[in-house]
């Protein structure tokens, strides 16, 4: 399997050499924004506003690390993933990969970036071309990035890759409809691995799968990380899944990250009210813990990202909101809880019941 990961290292720029010496994270996102214009009119299009899908996100991913990004639908987490794989151009902010700003990359530098940062999609049904065989799907990237796999040994590489993701290598000639959902997701993973990536953006990779198959795919992702030293940005809405797989977790709400920290920080000591509400809504699996946590039921819906509230974006649904929340946008920083949180009134409030502490704090 050693030849599955051969990284062509031919181009080393000044910035990349400096990055290698500095020991900075693999990926740094700073102040990332993406605003989609809202247009009106058929012939004469007039921009009447912007959907602020991503509105100032900071994030880092280190080598060999899994960073979770969790949030509800419409919070902008999938837009972050599209910006990362350069499918969309950011409105503002920087994505710095190995010391280089992605928006400044051109030509072969951008091509290399696109090879090194791969993506796994949510829907294993629509993300595979039904007219291509599994083998062709896995090999497709090599028609652009021919240097990753020498022409000669490609059939062998395809078999190795399928084998690596737990599929029978003889299935290379089958078409996607002949596979189950879990197997298709494995093909998607093999396609990403074929590019010998460094970072894989996983956008809801297991949410379309049944629980038993979901666990198989998560184990596979963990094994691949251990063996190949991959980094993951793991985007999902399922809080338990994110906790299980991530080293660090970021909670997103309406285009912003509201809380970040290790899994133990965020789940064990959530300090942003939104994180607390989110965690307390998740039903627990053990009869002994049922009804033990105090449940925070949020009222109303997420405000429109085209017209987010002033100040703190969560204030319209927050039970702690005061005047200052409408005026001042709370920055994401540590207010004495040991990890950063974007709330003026951040305080540690344990909401997830555990066996050692079956009845967490009661809210003030």
């Amino acid at each position, binding site marked *: 399997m050693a030849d599955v990961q051969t990284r062509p290292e031919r181009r080393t720029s000044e910035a990349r050499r400096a990055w290698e010496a500095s020991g900075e994270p693999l990926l740094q996102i700073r102040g990332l924004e993406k605003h989609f214009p809202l247009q009106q009119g058929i012939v004469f299009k007039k921009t009447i506003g912007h959907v602020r899908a991503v509105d100032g996100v900071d994030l880092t991913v280190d080598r060999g690390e899994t960073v979770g990004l969790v949030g*509800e*639908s419409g919070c902008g987490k999938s837009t972050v993933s599209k910006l990362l794989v350069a499918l969309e151009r950011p409105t503002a902010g920087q994505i710095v990969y190995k010391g280089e700003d992605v928006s400044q990359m051109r030509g072969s530098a951008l091509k290399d970036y696109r090879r090194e940062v791969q993506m796994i999609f949510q829907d294993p049904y629509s993300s595979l071309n039904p007219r291509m065989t599994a083998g062709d799907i896995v090999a497709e990237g090599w028609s652009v990035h021919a240097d990753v796999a020498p022409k000669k040994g490609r059939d062998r590489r395809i078999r190795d890759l399928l084998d690596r993701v737990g599929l029978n290598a003889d299935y290379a000639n089958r078409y996607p409809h002949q596979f*189950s959902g*879990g*197997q298709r997701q494995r093909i998607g993973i093999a396609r990403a691995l074929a590019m010998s990536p460094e970072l894989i953006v996983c956008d809801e990779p297991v949410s379309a799968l*049944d*629980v*038993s*198959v*979901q*666990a*198989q795919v*998560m*184990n596979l992702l*963990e094994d691949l990380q251990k063996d190949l030293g991959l980094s993951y940005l793991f985007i999902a*809405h399922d*809080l*338990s*899944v994110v*906790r*299980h*797989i991530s080293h660090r977790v970021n909670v997103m709400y309406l285009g912003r990250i509201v809380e970040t920290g290790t*899994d*133990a920080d965020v*789940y064990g000591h959530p300090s942003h009210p939104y994180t607390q*509400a*989110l*965690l*307390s*809504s*998740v*039903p*627990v*699996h*053990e*009869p*002994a*813990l*049922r*009804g033990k946590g105090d*449940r925070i*039921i*949020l*009222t*109303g*819906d997420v405000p429109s990202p085209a017209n987010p509230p002033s100040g703190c974006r969560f204030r319209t649904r927050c039970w702690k909101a005061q005047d200052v929340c409408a005026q001042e946008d709370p920055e994401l920083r540590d207010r004495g809880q040991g990890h950063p949180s974007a709330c003026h009134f951040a305080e540690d409030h344990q909401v*997830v*019941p*555990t*066996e050692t502490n079956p009845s967490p704090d009661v809210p003030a």
Partner: protein
Amino acid sequence: MNPPPGSSPAPAPDTRTAAPAGGGPVLEVEDLHVEFRSRGPVVTAVRGVSYSISPGETMAILGESGCGKSVSAQAIMGILDVPPAHITGAIRFEGRDMLTMAAEDQRKIRGPGVSMIFQDALSALNPVYSVGYQIGEMFRAHRGASKKEGRERAVELMDRVGIPAARQRVDDYPHQFSGGMRQRVMIAMALALDPKVLIADEPTTALDVTVQAQVMDLLQELQRETGMGLILITHDLGVVNEVADRVAVMYAGRVVETGTIDDVFTAPAHPYTRGLMSSIPLLEDKGNRLNPIVGAPPTLSNIPRGCSFHPRCPMARRATDGRDCATDGPVLREVAPGRRAECHYSEELLHG
């Protein structure tokens, strides 16, 4: 969540007269089989499923996709096309078999007797009618209400399921509502005639967790008010644990384990249930490596002989007395007081 104001539930004289005999089950499903026969192989979706539901009780039907949990519910609602579907067995509502009764009588039960909410509210609602018109249709069709009365009732119901500004929103169309609000509209429709049994087919799967919590709370509150029986079809073990009284775990068209939630979730008596439980990551702990069930569920046109779970089962074997999981199918039997499982080795699972 907005507390539903004290609007009185709509009276349902035509169904309340026939009370269930002595507080027994209001709905009983017995040995239900559903096959789909069209071109190609016969697809066996449900193979001998039995369960019952009493007033005020919540029963969860838990299983992965393709296990037959939704098809069995659709058979109860009579919304499967026959043919290609081929339904045998008995579905008794208040003692009367719905499968043998005339279509006209079945229609009288659907709505006031048994009603259903679906997973995807956007596709279950008609996009060209206002939500008020669709909710009011229940009253027009079953109670002979006028359009105006129907609309009034719709406003009451929307209020009751916690849709803010119901009177202003009654003439809005489904696409103008958010996912959670659409699910409330569907709940309002299902509850319009005060059903005795509500079947909720993955009611929160398409929703975010915070909205899921709102909707599940609403369902439980409405159940307490009306005393209806609730059949909750889901694949989410957490939801089952938090709201259900009893659970029936389904695999490949059969119920493989039933019992109270506490019994089943604390000590599963079927290897499939145990496998499901060790497949899920926990919220309260990062946990170690997950221990999933190997392989994938069988295709319903080609279900394994013997125990249908044996190709994936860590306990499947040929015993010294000649009993072989690959050929001798187990039957659903009582393995402990009040709980049943379909496995030769349940005692081994329960008592180590």
